[in-house]
């Protein structure tokens, strides 16, 4: 059983890292700040959750699972909130400093 879990975990983590890299590429090359925010929040929510889930499978211990789930929730939450706040302050001001 643990071998299967190990492989699933690695698969999930690989998808998470690939998503993170694509989001980083998006932040790098997308034209406007708001579209970059769009890419960033994907990295925060989806990318990191996959990595945390995969790590929990690979690690297998319960306390690690709790820490990782809390990590994923925190990053997703602050990513979403920060995305909203930056966009709100950026759009309301509307001209690049």
């Amino acid at each position: 059983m643990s071998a299967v879990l190990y492989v699933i975990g690695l698969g999930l983590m690989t998808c998470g890292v690939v998503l993170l890299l694509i989001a980083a590429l998006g932040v790098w090359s997308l034209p406007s700040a708001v579209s970059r925010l769009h890419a960033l929040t994907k990295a925060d929510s989806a990318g990191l959750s996959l990595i945390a889930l995969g790590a929990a499978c690979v690690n297998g211990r319960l306390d690690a699972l709790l820490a990782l789930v809390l990590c994923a929730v925190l990053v997703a939450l602050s990513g979403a909130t920060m995305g909203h706040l930056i966009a709100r302050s950026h759009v309301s001001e509307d001209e690049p400093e």
Partner: protein
Amino acid sequence: MILDLLALGTLVATLAALPRLILGPTAADRILAAQLAGTGTVATLIVLGTGEDTRGLFDTALVFAALSAVTGLAFVALRKARS
């Protein structure tokens, strides 16, 4: 072996925030780069932590995750102070 490769991948994602930091026309882009670097660091810590089973790394990842918003908040909240 794969875990080392994944750690390299997350580190590259963290360092990929640098071009945005240098080019970023507006200050919001730079804060964006900091947020991406923060997420990348948390991901790197998680990948490193799974490798050698130390729980200390997950606590560091937790601390980063909880405090990743503070710098961005400081920028958004205190931005008007300048004008």
